């Protein structure tokens, strides 16, 4: 079974699910618990919610990390077994960089801080650059595949 994760969405799935998304400036946060073979992915758009309580759960990094962790715990995961992977935060369109740069890096910084608060280690990261990334997580074994349309120059 496969599922594409849209912007601002969070999905938690058990083996044998494949979950995937495409990110540019957003962050795809993947969390994996290898013991119970549960994987979660959030497609996070912005760093801070600033009181926007009606936003979708995956929209803001400060809420999305908590929500993703909480759903995984509800499904039987333990915090101490969770491992995170962060992908995205690119600055697309190089000569308009100033307009795009800050949100991608702020997203990443906020995700890192929230994960640190939970004590969840980031085991892999592919962040920054100027290219978008396709991310696929196999919930059978936790394998994460990252691909790009072009090779990074």
């Amino acid at each position, binding site marked *: 079974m496969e599922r594409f994760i849209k912007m601002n969405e969070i999905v938690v799935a058990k083996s044998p699910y494949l979950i995937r998304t495409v990110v540019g*400036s957003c962050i795809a946060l993947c969390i994996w618990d290898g013991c119970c073979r549960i994987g979660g992915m959030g497609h996070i758009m912005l760093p801070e919610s600033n009181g926007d309580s009606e936003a979708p759960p995956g929209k803001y990094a400060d809420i999305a990390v908590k929500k993703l962790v909480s759903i995984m715990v509800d499904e039987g995961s333990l915090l101490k077994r969770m491992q995170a992977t962060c992908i995205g935060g690119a600055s*697309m369109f190089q000569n308009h960089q100033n307009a795009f740069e800050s949100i991608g890096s702020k997203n990443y910084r906020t995700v890192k801080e929230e994960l640190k608060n939970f004590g969840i280690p980031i085991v892999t990261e592919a962040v920054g650059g100027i*290219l978008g990334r396709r991310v696929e997580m196999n919930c059978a074994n936790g394998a994460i595949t990252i691909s790009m349309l072009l090779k990074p120059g």
Partner: protein
Amino acid sequence: MTVVKEKKVSSKSEQIKLEKSLTHLFVVSFNQAANAFSQLLMREMVISRYSIEMMTGEQFINQLENKMEDGYFASIIKLQNDVDTTILFLLPEEEGKRLYNILNDKELKAEFPSIEDLSDSIGELNNILGSNFTNCLANTLNHTIHNSVPANTLDLLGAILESVVLQREFVNKSIFCAEADISDKKCSTFTVKLIILSDKTQLMGILSQS
């Protein structure tokens, strides 16, 4: 340079009148773009579909959900100073290669020039089409408007679109999204998407002054 100040749009009738003016502006600029495209390619290019809607950035992205993983050439131009507007030109990867061949009068070949050359050719088209919109808007407002040089890329559509809506000007705002498909009238060699994203409140306010 004169700075156009925004004015609050008061009555509902005034709002409707302004929305009609905006729709007219977009339709005229799309038609001018199609004409410029026809002249450039020496073949008849027509608007095969257009829509003008107000939406959020998420809605804008989700309408193209099934194409998120496809490769697209993209070029963006930003209008500067008074009007927060982005002109986005999109073309599927394979169709972009066909367009490049038409522009350069070449037969379809397996080998292509560098991605940078392809992107620059397509960005130049956006420059021409985008200039039509800028001129239309400038004439309507009787005001000088400057635009940026095109920023070009070839990437996954999902990544392109989210980077566009994550611009400071559009995050968490209602945006006007005017979108047109411009196609070759005789055969479906390629269809380009020309999308104009604009801060609705700001654009209506400026238009109400003109």
